[in-house]
């Protein structure tokens, strides 16, 4: 019984951890980007203040916004939060980690995106339409690329359970495989596309021709906008956590580990997050945004790489 309570506590700790750390990751990325551009930039904890400020504001809704428009932010946030809580951050084998494997985590993110696209269409403006149509175009290539990456990883590790894959990658059985390298590169491309980062989408733009995610949430304000922004931060955290858990799984505490192991895992996780945020900021500053119809070729390359990794695994076990 005490064991169950302890497991439950650890699972809840993970859920709270991802929720609390997500804005800090976004804040860190923004700060590093600003510094690279020789600006001082907002403080790292500014996103927390932004979210609280949005919560206190009066919500302004379009006259013809429906119940779906008002319910969508909650659904998007719930799906993103559940997906982010299921990815091992500082420990594997958490209490409910077996209830959804990597394919289910990706599908949960697809649910969030489905409702976001619908919310974009709800008010009936052309901005919402442009955001939704471009978002589903990007998703129509990013999601299959993600699935082929999942297949490649599953064929290497023999499982689609995140804890099992992380455990396998941590063991000495895994070598420097080509398919792993291809999967990593494809994963990074998909992560950039899914999180609406340069070069796919500009998260700081105000020009409609460069908008995808921003156009869909144009009509949202106050608490709804706060939920959607928090969901987007959770999504970024989820992708960086996935890269950390699948490709850099060192210092992950085993199931039923000691508190010291959990603490070490948490510190290692925060370090990996910080590293990921810095690399993302450097990458975004170093490259320009692509035009919209170059993005399918970019994502198509990720799909090819994932498919190539899968083919190599099918053809020979040593690839």
């Amino acid at each position, binding site marked *: 019984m005490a064991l169950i309570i302890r497991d439950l506590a650890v699972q809840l700790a993970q859920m709270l951890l991802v929720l609390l750390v997500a804005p800090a990751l976004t804040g860190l990325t923004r700060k590093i980007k600003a510094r690279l551009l020789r600006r001082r930039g907002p403080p790292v904890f500014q996103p927390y203040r932004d979210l609280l400020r949005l919560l206190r504001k*009066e919500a302004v809704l*379009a006259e013809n916004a*429906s119940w779906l428009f008002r319910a969508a932010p909650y659904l998007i946030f719930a799906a993103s939060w559940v997906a982010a809580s299921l990815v091992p951050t500082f420990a594997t084998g958490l209490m*409910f980690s077996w209830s959804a494997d990597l394919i289910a985590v990706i599908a949960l993110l697809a649910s969030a995106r489905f409702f976001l696209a619908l919310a974009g269409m709800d008010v009936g403006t*052309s*901005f919402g339409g442009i955001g939704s149509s471009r978002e589903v175009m990007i998703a129509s290539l990013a999601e299959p690329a993600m699935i082929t990456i999942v297949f490649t990883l599953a064929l290497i590790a023999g499982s689609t*359970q995140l804890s099992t894959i992380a455990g396998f990658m941590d063991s000495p059985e895994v070598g420097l495989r080509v398919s792993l390298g291809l999967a990593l590169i494809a994963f990074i491309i998909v992560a950039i596309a899914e999180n609406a980062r340069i070069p796919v989408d500009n998260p700081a733009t105000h020009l409609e021709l460069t908008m995808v995610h921003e156009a869909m949430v144009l009509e949202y304000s106050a608490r709804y906008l706060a939920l959607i922004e928090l969901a987007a931060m959770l999504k970024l955290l989820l992708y960086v956590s996935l890269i950390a858990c699948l490709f850099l799984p060192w210092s992950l505490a085993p199931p039923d580990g000691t508190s010291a192991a959990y603490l070490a895992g948490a510190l290692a996780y925060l370090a990996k997050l910080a590293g990921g945020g810095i690399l993302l900021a450097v990458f975004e500053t170093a490259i320009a945004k692509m035009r919209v119809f170059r993005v399918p070729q970019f994502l198509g390359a990720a799909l090819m790489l994932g498919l190539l990794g899968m083919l190599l695994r099918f053809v020979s076990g040593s690839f």
Partner: protein
Amino acid sequence: MPVIIVLYCVATFFVASVLGITTAHMRAGTPLVYGICLASSAVALVSALMQLLTGGAAPELVLPLGLPWLGSHFRIDTLAAFFLVVVNLGGGAASLFALGYGQHETAPQRVLPFYPAFLAGMNLVVLADDAFTFLLCWEFMSLSSWALVMAHHREAENRRAGYIYLLMASFGTLALVLAFGLLAGPDGGYGFAMIRAAAHPVPTMVAALVLALALLGAGSKAGLVPLHVWLPLAHPAAPSHVSALMSGVMTKVAVYGFIRIVFDLLGAPSWWSSMVVLALAGITTVMGVLYALMQHDLKVLLAYHTVENIGIVFIGLGLALAFQTNGMEFAAALAMTAALFHVFNHSLFKSLLFFGAGAVLNSTGERDMEKLGGLIHRMPLVSFAFLVGCVAISALPPLNGFVSEWLTFQAILLSPALPQWGLKILIPVVGALLALSAALAGACFVKAFGVTFLGRPRSKHAEKATETDPFSLAAMFLLAALCLLAGILPGFVIDALAPVTQGLVAGHMPAQAAVPWLAIVPVSESRSSYDGMLVFAFIALSALLSVYAIHRLASHRLRRVPAWDCGFPDSSPFTQYTASSFAQPIRRVFGSVVFHARERVEMPPPGDSRPAVLQVELRDPVWDFLYAPIALAVGFAAERLNHLQFLTIRSYLSLVFVLLILLLLVAAIWL
């Protein structure tokens, strides 16, 4: 005995059909006929479900109808029981929907007699246990559905749809006749038991031919590319409850025919047959959803989407064939379970979506999405049920579409163990195509729901829409609830399917009822597991928690204003995205390759007040490369052979004379 019960239900359908002829002109005729159909379907559903779950012995029933030395054999084994459940669930839901929808029918005398006959035909096909009865009932099913397609025959496009449907159905039946002929052999043992008892293994040439003919016959009825062309014409032309039956149920009867011939009667196939099925299925999946994305008619979009889902079912069946030939029974059972689960799921959510389209058609008189919009305000209940259908069909957790897709992916992950090189290269490609089609399906239904129900009304009809009647709503919510249940409790469905797969591929998935927390574990705990109930609970809890937190922490104030629209508000509803503008990015990326999609803009010179015109040109590759040349060849041959009609008497006599000499020569040489 369940067989007798279901046969009595079929007889009731025939009675209802006769009643339909006599009472069509009366107001009470519609509720009477549909009510009888609903009751009959419910009874048949319950008895089939009992047979499936209890799995009793499956005795054969021979009726002295049909061929004198053969009779008509009827039997419900586990496969037939499952498909009877699917057929009668769909039939019952459609009858419930039609109790309300049928009130608006303009020509009830053209619909009421044939609808029960259609249901009877579908039930009889699944019950049939010999080739003659099977084919007879198959044709009966096709003809009654053709009559329903031609119900509104005044429109030219419906007539064309009926004509093409009749052509393809006849072609399919011909292929099936040949297939059964090959299986029965020269002795004419048409009973299925006789075919199973006949010499095994079947010689490879014969097996290959039977598979090809089964693909042509059953595949054309199910909607495999390139035999799908009748589907998007015929399904929308029929009344909406019939469209739901044709898309959601009749295609499943075709899948039943394929499974019966290939898995049950043919025995062990060779491995390259699975390659053919997988390749066709992969192409079908992607082409179906790409076609659907280009449409702006709601029912045509749904019909093309059926093609995609049939592709997913056949991917599962192809994988099961591949595993079975290589002796991997467990993996074959997993693939077969995935395919059958998707059969069940698709009949649920496709019927639901067609019912929604029917409700919209009833309220607004429009099927074209470009003239709808904003219906979520006018028809809130219909839009909620339609939303559940859209989420389910896009394979999003925690609903049922995700579970069958997840099981198919798990089956693909078991396939590196297959030794054949062709399969090793083909299966990853098919997996990528399946993932691609899942993502495109999500895009398609964002478009379908977003353009039809969200936004602002684009026409007067959409502005004046009203909610539909309670029977239609009841049918839609029943199906939506079943979608949710099948997604949350997939273990029960998998356990119910275990005896079916045991009979087909001699293997079954591990019992899911024993797994804790109602999760499903297809292979082993460490490999993969999914818990639909927990995922649903987590999402619900997180959503409620966030609602509570926002309620406590955030401001409650709310103000309604005109839309922000970046500071450029435009009151005209034509500035919002249309269906074709929503699909434009995908059309550019995929359509330019597959459909040769080209956009042309004609700008008038400055000073001219004509509007600019944007034309989108799409070419259907299947028509261009397959059917148009065939039609040309047929026309050419007919042109040439026409001369035979106008010969002189002397020419006819010399023709007969020459043929007689030839036959005598053959007799002399070879006998």
